[in-house]
């Protein structure tokens, strides 16, 4: 009698334990519904890593790599809105990063304005150019946007390199600057980067779940059906494109503030390959997901700058990562359009299914 009671007791305990395990999986669902928790945890982890680096537990080079990856993540978030939510591709990303970068330099170093004004300047410039370019190309057809932005990026790059030739290059340096009474050094800048990333992630996620995001998604799936619902193609396409240019300009500005200088060698940042890598990052990660974009950026930029640079083979063949990026883009578009995020969700669903099956086998069907 006591023995069977004991058995029931252990059985109940076991069941409770399993329930707890299931709850941890359900937590992922909750995160999906309330994304702000996940973003906050992510930002906290980054801050903790930085604090560990200050304490000497983590290599300081890692922090630099994380910083630049965060900047690319911000560009990626804008691109995610453009590509995943309105099915447009742009090749002008690098050009808009350059606009943010140089207008910040001019505002702060040449004209001595504050950082708030320079933010307004960069974003305003990006909006004006974005609207002009977007209006002309999107009036014809969606696929023309990539062509026209490719040209714009090339012109911006040519003009900037010409300006850089006329003014001496080493002038393009902001070592320490006094921003609204705050002395900002690279250490503090890292926290600003994390904060900006957090805010933009939140904004993007809210936008994706708002009527605007739904309208963009409808437009992506069928332009004709969306028009039938009264969605103005031009308005939402232009909105998505201008948003992506704003993100790129903000990223360019942060780059200028974080790295502190642009030189001729860093002008590769403004070349076509950057636009292609951002595109690759968003595609590989999963076009419609914020976490996917972060993951994709980590694969394209993070892994390379954080770990592979220590291996001589990868340092000697810098184009290897380009090959991997190109190959992954082609393969993902052809065979696995959801990208990395879809892979993860499929795995989670599968594990959930297995767990359910196992529970049924063990305890029988629930009533």
């Amino acid at each position, binding site marked *: 009698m006591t023995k069977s009671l004991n058995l029931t007791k252990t059985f109940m305990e076991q069941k409770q334990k399993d329930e707890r395990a299931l709850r941890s999986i359900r937590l992922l669902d909750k995160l999906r519904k309330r994304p702000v928790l996940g973003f906050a945890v992510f930002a906290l982890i980054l801050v903790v890593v930085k604090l560990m680096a200050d304490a000497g537990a983590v290599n300081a080079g890692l922090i630099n790599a994380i910083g630049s990856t965060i900047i690319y993540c911000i560009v990626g978030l804008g691109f995610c809105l453009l*590509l995943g939510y309105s*099915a*447009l*591709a742009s*090749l002008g990303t690098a050009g808009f990063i350059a606009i943010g970068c140089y207008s910040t330099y001019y505002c702060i170093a040449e004209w001595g304005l504050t950082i708030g004004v320079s933010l307004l300047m960069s974003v305003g410039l990006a909006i004006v150019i974005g609207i*002009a370019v977007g209006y*002309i190309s999107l*009036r*014809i057809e*969606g*696929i*023309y946007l*990539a*062509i*026209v932005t*490719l*040209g*714009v990026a*090339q*012109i911006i790059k*040519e*003009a900037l390199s*010409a*300006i850089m030739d006329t003014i001496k290059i080493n002038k393009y340096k902001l070592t320490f600057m006094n921003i609204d009474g705050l002395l900002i050094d690279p250490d503090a800048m890292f926290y600003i980067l994390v904060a900006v990333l957090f805010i933009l992630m939140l904004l993007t996620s809210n936008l994706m779940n708002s009527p605007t995001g739904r309208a963009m998604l409808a437009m992506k799936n069928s332009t*004709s059906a969306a028009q039938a619902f009264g969605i103005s193609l031009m308005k939402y396409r232009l909105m998505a494109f201008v948003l992506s240019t704003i993100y790129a300009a903000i990223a360019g500005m942060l780059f200028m503030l974080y790295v502190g200088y642009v030189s001729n060698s860093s002008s590769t940042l403004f*070349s*076509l*390959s950057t636009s*292609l*890598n951002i*595109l*690759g990052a968003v*595609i590989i990660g999963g076009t419609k997901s914020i976490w996917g974009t972060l993951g994709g950026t980590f694969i394209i930029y993070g892994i390379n700058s954080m770990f592979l640079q220590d291996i001589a083979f990868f340092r000697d*063949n810098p*184009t*290897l*990562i*380009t*090959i*991997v*990026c*190109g*190959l*992954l*883009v*082609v393969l993902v*578009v*052809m065979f696995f*359009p959801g990208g990395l995020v879809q892979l993860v969700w499929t795995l989670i669903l599968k594990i959930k299914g297995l767990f359910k099956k196992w529970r049924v086998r063990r305890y029988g069907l629930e009533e």
Partner: protein
Amino acid sequence: MFSALIQNLIGVLPSMCAGILATFAVTLIFKTSYTTNFAQGVISALGAYVAVDLAMTHGLPLWGVSVIGVVVAFVVGVLIDVCIFRRGRNVNTLGKQIISMGLISLIIGIIPFLFTIAKAEAMPVQPIIPLTEGFKMGEVNVPYNTLLGVGITVVLMVVLFVALQKSKWGLAVRATASNETVAGMMGVNTKIITALSWGIAGALGAVAAIIYVGNVSLSSGYVMTSTQINAFLAGILGGFATFYGPVLGAVIIYLLNWIVGYICSLEGVGLTTWKSAIVYVIVMILVLIKPQGLFGKKMVKKV
């Protein structure tokens, strides 16, 4: 002053030839596969790399390596269609565009592994057609190099346009361009036509790259980017609806380049930096006035 203008025109001619060939290639692919092939520039650069690499490392005659480079670009074009675009039939237009962008990264990454000349930082590259000397026409110096490029381009364009109008291949291409499914039902082997278009586009690109590289130098895989941008712009300006529209668009864009470049370089103007920006803005204004292109007609899309 007049002779300076003409001299400028002769300076523009090689890139104009390259631009015209690249435009035709882009149009051919746009019509048969309905995608903008962004990898066109790097495929042609690959052809040029093959030619220059063979010429510099093995000392083969230049016409020989040029032919090899063109053949390689043809094969690469066909392979891309057969291996990727034919399998990706269910991929939408944006997907195809993105695949072609992925191909840029792929080919740009592969080039330094294949060619030793691409690894060296600043390797001086000889022009592929080494006819730097020319003859004098009044005060204007005409290099044989440029004449050869113009000759090749004119011959190729005439042959291609006559073939498009008169030959069976041309009929098949036009049928595929107007409606792939119906063309297939009428007995056109659309798979072969599409693959051939990719091959021809690659080959034309390689010819363009070899003409172009003869005047600038082969600095990186991105060497053809500006030509490609002009080719796409020409497509928009002329309108992708016809075959001749984009080619005429290319001519207009390069003539604009010539005139604007001349005016900008005049003393007292000093706008040389903004030359391409001005040309670009002019083209954009033209497109704003005529969204379907100068020679285009409205393409009606059925739901």
